[in-house]
């Protein structure tokens, strides 16, 4: 209620009159004062003219508003005005006092009934506010009132009516009843009008309520009057004159308001009564939206909400202003588009604008206007909705989005940067501006030192930054956080005596948050923000700082890990290259050595081969191949002898059992004899082989056999000749004896002597013959020895012969080549000259055994040649005996120089060892490289996981109550945003889930994406979804726009393709279905998104579509995929995108 001083004073009039009446009643003053014509004049002036004027105004207002309430009020005033004026003038008629009283009191009763009816009707009788009524209603009612007044007056004058006043007796009971009724109706009407004023706050009703109340007091006072003109009569008259004045005040107040608004009095009153229909009024007054009616930019009506929006307490305060006065000048039409002023009339087009209230407060509102007819004239009604909260929510959402933008961009910048520690400056300055902070510090812990270095900062001078560049653990807030790894939030710093905050306090900071940079449980630095604009950060702000800190920690740690990996990789590459070079050199040398070895093996006059335990022959030298042919993968017994089983007599595989060298003799398939040496051999792959060397000793055996044969023959011959010689000698001795006997006999007998001489001569001839034979035999023997000498001299194998004193007696050419010494130099020297000094004793020890008849069999004895080189020789020996077979004549030894083979074997072993070592090193480096790659993959997986989590957090944020306007439009916007973010989050989830970081498996990606969108728009799964994209993979640069395109199109399908009235089974003979497929089509990819719904509206063109979703589809397809778009509308809708499969190479932009 708005009660000003005037109203308060006016209200006092009621108790004042009551008090006067009480006092008069107590004092019982009965003075009568009734001068002639005074009452008539006063009645005519106050309760005649004024009520009649009001009745006139009411009649005109009724014409405009059609309100029966105003007409009843006017009727009440009319009957009072007519009745009281007439009753005053009747008094001049002698004896007409009863008629006067009857007329006055009857009019009071009728007038009070009209007043009460008007108030009651106003509150309870809904009347259409459209248009006014015809004059007929006025004439009928007002005519009735006039007729009634005249009728009462005439009947009273004629004495027909029951008496109200009897001279000498005073008022009758009837008068008392009539006046009591009038008093009751006036009192009730007064209370109702006061109630109406309280409800409407229209001053008209306040003044009218006072007026009616004073009429009631007037009735009460004149009831007590004992005579016309006594003090009670005059008190009542004054009260009714005052009542008439208040009634006039009500009209004047309305007129004053009308003048201020520039409207007529009738319009103003019509406004009170045309909206007086309580049903509408309550509805309108209590409407949550502001409702105003205006014409020519002037307010005609405003409900409570509108008053509050305009900052007015009463309509009167508002009505003196025009509409343009209360609208933000920025929104008024000056080339803008929101509001147009059309012929001095503000017309809103349903847009948002800002109201400037009378209290100066600015309110965001959405306004809708419509033309109406108000009080019989054209006007404008405006519905004003307060959208301040929605704006706040939008602002909060915008801020949230901005925050997420900052986080997402921060993550992108940090993770994309090669030098994230440099990006921190830029990123933190953005966060600082967003949080309205004035400083930030980023410290990084120096490795293995208990201190930190200032990496980035803002809000302090260079000198100050230099001063605090290095910070020990435990010093200031950052030092404590760096040491403890725990966040510190300092609030109201200027009033907190915490020593740790001395530094930031000196910078006028009042709130400060310092977060540790933690990666994999290890603190690597700190990030802190401070503000001097408020004493503390909100929880949301500290969460943002924490999120930024986590991103910075991840990026910096990632960079460090990458540097370490890169460094390790570079070192590894260098070492691999170095090792590879060495290995190549070694392999080359080995290859060369092998070739040399193979060449040696190939040119050896002996056969060399390798045999596997399963009788296969992986290697055989040329000698072997020429003798026995190629094995062609067959077993040795097969290709050599055509057998199916191993040979029973083969000694080769003895080595397999003994793992020791074995020597034996073998007759090959070529029927030649071979001296076989088998050695255990480990191949490069570790497998066990047998290396066999065979020396063709057939010729040697033949020579030896021949030699043996000749020797035996010689010995036989010598024995024979010796026997013959001995026999001849014996015979000769006998002959000589005989000769001597004969000579003696000759001497005795001369003749016998001659004969005997002749016989002797004959014997001599025979002896000569024998001697010749002996010479011949000696010659033959000499020839045989020469052959043997040549055989020894020209044998390929080195042969040496020594006598029992170890003096060398034979030294063949092969031995000369071996030692570089000539036979002439050596023969006659002791055997020791052949051996190196350090092997001398051991060698002679072996040699001495031959003196006991032992034979050397494959014994290694080193030989020293002229150049001082040591040659390794395998020895075999045989002992030659004298003819007695016991006395050792000499020892012959045959050698085989295996120095080159030994060297080759040693070199091969050495190379094998180096090769194995290099392989081991390579394997180890490969393991390290694999480990580093694994770490990198884990890091990449972690990055994608974090990006996905941030997007998921954004989706969750959108779901929070208050993050969006909870209207159908707000919910739709939320769903769209969530699905767009979800499509991007799923990309990253697919990457780390599949472990492929450069290619997105679109089958893995699209199925969950479409499932999630289906859940958000079709939770009851009424619409079937089909996805076919198995085997299709796209790079990240194409997968992201593909995901967004699919999201937008199927969102449209869910929203619009299947309205409730559309029956898929009936129209399409199949359930409602949305299909997505991605497949190769020749050189292109073909992405198809379709539904079997109602199809697109006629004239649809995706190129000119205005919705954000379809604009995104068209733009992404054209701009990023370079796709050709085809829209098919046969059965439902199908949109096909064809794009090249050429992968673009793209970095981070």
């Amino acid at each position, binding site marked *: 209620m708005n009660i000003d001083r005037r109203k308060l004073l006016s209200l006092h009039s009621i108790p004042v009159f009551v008090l006067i009446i009480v006092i008069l009643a107590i004092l019982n003053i009965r003075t009568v004062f009734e001068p002639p014509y005074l009452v008539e004049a006063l009645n005519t002036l106050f309760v005649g003219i004024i009520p009649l004027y009001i009745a006139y105004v009411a009649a005109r207002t009724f014409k405009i508003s059609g309100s029966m309430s105003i007409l009843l009020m006017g009727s009440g005033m009319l009957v009072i005005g007519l009745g009281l004026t007439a009753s005053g003038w009747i008094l001049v008629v002698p004896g007409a006092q009863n008629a006067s009283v009857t007329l006055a009191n009857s009019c009071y009763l009728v007038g009070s009934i009209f007043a009460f009816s008007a108030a009651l009707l106003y509150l309870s009788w809904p009347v259409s506010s459209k248009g006014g009524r015809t004059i007929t209603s006025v004439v009928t009612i007002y005519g009735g009132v006039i007729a009634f007044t005249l009728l009462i007056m005439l009947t009273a004058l004629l004495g027909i009516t029951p008496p109200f006043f009897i001279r000498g007796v005073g008022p009758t009971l009837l008068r008392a009843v009539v006046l009591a009724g009038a008093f009751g109706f006036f009192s009730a009407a007064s209370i109702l009008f006061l109630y109406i004023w309280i409800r409407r706050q229209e001053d008209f009703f306040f003044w009218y309520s006072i007026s009616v109340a004073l009429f009631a007091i007037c009735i009460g006072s004149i009831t007590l009057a004992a005579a016309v003109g006594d003090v009670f009569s005059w008190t009542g008259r004054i009260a009714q004159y005052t009542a008439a004045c208040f009634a006039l005040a009500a009209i004047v107040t309305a007129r004053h308001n009308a003048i201020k608004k520039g409207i007529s009095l009738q319009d103003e009153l019509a406004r009170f009564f045309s909206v007086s229909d309580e049903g509408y009024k309550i509805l309108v007054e209590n409407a949550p939206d502001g409702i105003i009616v205006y014409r020519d930019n002037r307010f005609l009506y405003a409900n409570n909400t509108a008053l509050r929006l305009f900052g007015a307490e009463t309509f009167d305060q508002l009505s003196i202003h025009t509409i343009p006065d209360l609208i933000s000048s920025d929104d008024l039409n000056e080339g803008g588009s929101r509001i147009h002023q059309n012929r001095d009339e503000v017309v809103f087009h349903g847009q948002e604008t800002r109201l400037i209230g009378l209290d100066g407060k600015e309110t965001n509102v959405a306004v809708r206007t419509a033309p109406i007819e108000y009080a019989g004239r054209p006007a404008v009604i405006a519905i004003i909705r307060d959208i301040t909260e929605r704006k706040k929510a939008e602002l909060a959402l915008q801020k949230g989005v901005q925050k997420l933008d900052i986080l997402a961009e921060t993550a992108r910048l940090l993770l994309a*940067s090669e030098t994230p520690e440099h*990006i921190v400056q830029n990123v933190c300055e953005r966060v600082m501006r967003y949080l309205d902070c004035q400083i930030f510090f980023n410290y990084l812990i120096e490795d293995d030192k208990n201190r930190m270095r200032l990496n980035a900062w803002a809000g302090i001078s260079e000198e100050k930054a230099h001063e605090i560049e290095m910070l020990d653990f435990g010093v200031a807030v950052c030092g404590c956080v760096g040491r403890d790894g725990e966040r510190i939030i300092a609030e109201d710093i200027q009033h907190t005596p915490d020593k740790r905050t001395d530094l930031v306090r000196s910078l006028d900071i009042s709130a400060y948050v310092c977060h540790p940079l933690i990666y994999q449980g290890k603190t690597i630095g700190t990030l802190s923000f401070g503000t001097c604009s408020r004493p503390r950060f909100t929880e949301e702000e500290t969460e943002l700082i924490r999120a930024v800190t986590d991103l910075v920690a991840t990026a910096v740690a990632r960079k460090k890990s990458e540097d370490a990996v890169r460094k390790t990789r570079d070192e590894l590459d260098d070492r691999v290259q170095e090792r590879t070079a060495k290995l190549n050199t070694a392999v080359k040398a080995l290859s060369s050595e092998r070739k040399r070895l193979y060449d040696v093996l190939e040119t050896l006059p002996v056969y060399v081969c390798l045999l596997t335990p399963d009788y296969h022959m992986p290697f055989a030298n040329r000698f072997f191949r020429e003798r026995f042919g190629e094995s062609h993968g067959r077993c040795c017994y097969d290709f050599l002898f055509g057998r199916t089983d191993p040979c029973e007599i083969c000694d080769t595989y003895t080595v397999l059992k003994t793992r020791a060298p074995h020597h034996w003799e073998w007759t090959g398939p070529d029927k030649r004899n071979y001296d076989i040496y088998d050695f255990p051999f480990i191949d490069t792959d570790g497998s066990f082989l047998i290396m066999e060397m065979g020396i063709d000793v057939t010729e040697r055996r033949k020579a030896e056999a021949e030699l043996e044969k000749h020797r035996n023959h010689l010995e036989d011959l010598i024995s024979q000749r010796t026997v013959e010689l001995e026999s001849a000698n014996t015979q000769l001795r006998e002959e000589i004896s005989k000769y001597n006997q004969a000579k003696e006999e000759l001497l005795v007998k001369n003749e016998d002597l001659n004969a005997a001489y002749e016989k002797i001569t004959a014997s001599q001839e025979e002896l000569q013959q024998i001697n010749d034979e002996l010479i011949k035999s000696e010659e033959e023997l000499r020839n045989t020895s020469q052959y043997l000498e040549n055989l020894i001299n020209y044998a390929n194998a080195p042969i040496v012969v020594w006598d029992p004193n170890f003096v060398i007696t034979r030294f063949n050419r092969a031995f000369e080549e071996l030692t570089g010494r000539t036979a002439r130099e050596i023969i006659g020297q002791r055997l020791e000259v052949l051996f190196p000094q350090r092997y001398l004793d051991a060698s002679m020890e072996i040699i001495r055994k031959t003196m006991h008849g032992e034979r050397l069999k494959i014994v290694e004895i080193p030989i020293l040649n002229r150049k001082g080189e040591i040659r390794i020789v395998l020895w075999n020996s045989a002992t030659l005996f004298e003819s007695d077979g016991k006395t050792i004549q000499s020892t012959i030894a045959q050698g085989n120089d295996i120095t080159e083979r030994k060297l080759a074997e040693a070199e091969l072993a050495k190379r094998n060892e180096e090769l194995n070592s290099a392989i081991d090193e390579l394997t180890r480096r490969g393991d390290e490289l694999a480990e580093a790659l694994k770490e990198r993959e884990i890091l990449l997986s972690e990055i994608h996981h974090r990006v996905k989590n941030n997007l998921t957090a954004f989706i969750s944020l959108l779901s929070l109550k208050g993050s969006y306007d909870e209207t159908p439009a707000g919910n739709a916007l939320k769903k769209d945003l969530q699905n767009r973010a979800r499509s991007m989050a799923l990309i990253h989830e697919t990457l780390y889930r599949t472990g492929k970081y450069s290619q997105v498996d679109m089958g893995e990606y699209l199925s969950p994406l479409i499932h999630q969108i289906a859940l958000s728009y079709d939770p009851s799964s009424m619409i079937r979804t089909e996805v076919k994209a198995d085997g299709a993979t796209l790079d990240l640069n194409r997968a992201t726009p593909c995901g*967004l395109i699919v999201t937008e199109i199927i969102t449209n399908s869910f929203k619009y393709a299947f309205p409730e009235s559309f029956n898929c089974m009936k129209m399409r003979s199949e359930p409602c279905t949305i299909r997505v497929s991605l497949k190769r089509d020749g050189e292109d990819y073909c992405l198809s998104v379709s539904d079997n719904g109602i199809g697109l509206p006629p004239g649809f063109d995706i190129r000119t579509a205005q919705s954000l979703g379809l604009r995104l589809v068209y733009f992404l397809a054209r701009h990023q995929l370079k796709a050709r778009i085809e829209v098919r509308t046969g059965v439902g809708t199908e949109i096909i995108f064809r794009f090249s499969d050429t992968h673009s190479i*793209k970095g981070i932009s």
Partner: protein
Amino acid sequence: MTAKSILIVEDEGLIALHLMEILTNAGYRVLEPLASGEEALRHLEERTQPDLILMDITLDGSLDGIETARQIRKRYATPVIFLTAHSNSLITARAKEVSPCGYIIKPVLEKDLLEHVERALHV
């Protein structure tokens, strides 16, 4: 007076669309965005010259934004503003060699973008 025309060379579709909206709302005539340096050079050769080019540094194709701007500078007088997420000194130094009219770090704020564009067009 006709609106100034601006060519956007940006390979990320959403960013290109966002830039296009900001500039269109600000009253500029925005040509259809391009995604690679090769497309930009072809456009300049075959069509009318824009009043300003907004050039992302990392682009699809073999030419990056800096190299594209270098070739544009050799043949035309069209001013170029770089857009990039990079802020390291090496890339900044490379970008300065081609004397751009501006260098905007992503994410782009509407106010920053319009100030740079306004300044570049007046220069």
